[in-house]
């Protein structure tokens, strides 16, 4: 079961800048016409975008691959708008965010109402190469839980909010959030055992 733990900030920053340097190198060579490097860039970007979108769309995992492809296409079509003096992360993040907002507008998902979209700049932190990740299944199992268990898990474990923030969003007390996470995870584990 994939549950993301908050990462140590320093390590996060290091990984971020390493990915930035690496992907930017490939991208700039790609702009010059090096298709092999450009392909490396798209592959790397695709993995990061997938992880990013999965995190953003805990309840619309089925749409992740669609939005991912649309965003890759947008990045490709807009590659002449990249400025050499700007971080690639900022550029890609703005495009991904734009396409995601577009999706929210089109579908008016509940996520759009419940989760105001913050700029956490974490696009390059995690990478997800596997198109059929286990989290999709967790997402489905989660759907089966009652809201009082599901929402605390989604907010605290999947989106990394603090207990206090989650309590505020669910409109319940902090201890109820903790209990919800605990019981919800137990119920999930039981369901996973049952489904295997």
């Amino acid at each position, binding site marked *: 079961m994939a549950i993301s733990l908050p990462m140590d900030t320093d390590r996060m920053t290091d990984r971020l800048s390493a990915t930035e340097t690496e992907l930017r190198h490939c991208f700039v060579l*790609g*702009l*010059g*016409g090096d*298709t*092999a490097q*450009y*392909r490396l860039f*798209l*592959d790397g970007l*695709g993995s990061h975008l*997938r992880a990013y979108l999965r995190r953003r769309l805990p309840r619309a995992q089925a749409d992740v*691959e669609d939005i*991912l*492809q649309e965003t*890759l*296409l*947008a990045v*490709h*079509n*807009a*590659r*002449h*708008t*990249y*400025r050499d003096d*700007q*971080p690639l992360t*900022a*550029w*890609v*993040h*703005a*495009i991904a*965010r*734009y396409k995601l907002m577009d999706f929210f507008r089109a579908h008016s998902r509940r996520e759009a109402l419940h989760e105001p979209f913050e700029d956490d700049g974490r696009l390059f932190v995690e990478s997800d190469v596997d*198109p059929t990740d286990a989290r999709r299944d967790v997402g489905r199992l989660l759907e089966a839980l009652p809201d009082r268990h599901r929402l605390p898990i989604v907010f605290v474990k999947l989106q990394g909010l603090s207990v206090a923030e989650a309590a505020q969003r669910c409109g319940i007390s902090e201890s109820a959030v903790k209990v919800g996470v605990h019981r919800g995870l137990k119920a999930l584990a039981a369901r996973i055992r049952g489904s295997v």
Partner: protein
Amino acid sequence: MKTDDLIAMLANAAPPVDRRAPGRRFALALLLGLAAAMVLMAVGLGLRRDLNEVVRWPMFWLRLAYPACIGSAAMWLTLRLSRPGVRIGNRWAGVAAPVAVAWIGMAAVLTQVPVDARLALVLGHTWRVCPILIALLSTPAFAAMLWAVRGMAPVRLRATGAAVGLLAGATATVAYCLHCPEISPAFWSIWYLLGMAIPAVVGALIGPRVLRW
């Protein structure tokens, strides 16, 4: 389609990018917009008859500098807004600065005249038509600039539309300066600004629809 297939397809359709193409496109749009505004002004309204005379007045150039400064700020904003992930922050202040200076000028002029003469100075002879004529003159520049921005990737569509409209309005005002009979800052600091604001508001309204990509 599988994502890997899409990536392979995109990588194969990736010729070298001409990094200077956006700049050329914007320059062309600006020139076309200005030229069209000039022609419309010269044909539809006519140049000031005493133009030979007024080009020697410093106030003529100050008046011309007003839309020119606002236009430069709007151009700069438009360039930044048409690229994803470029910060704007408080750079709208670049637009506010020339306005503030002109309004200080207006206040200075108005304090020099008796109270009952002030309104006449502000309204001039053409306040009813000035903003509308500027808005009309701005339409070619507006269309040209929208075309240029549509070739880019703006992500803040409303703000981008407003910047494009303001730029088109400023371009039109530069042309209008060669026709306008009013010379007092008490007049032009207000009515020119209103004329430029009309396309800016239109831009903000239609931006999300027209600039979507």
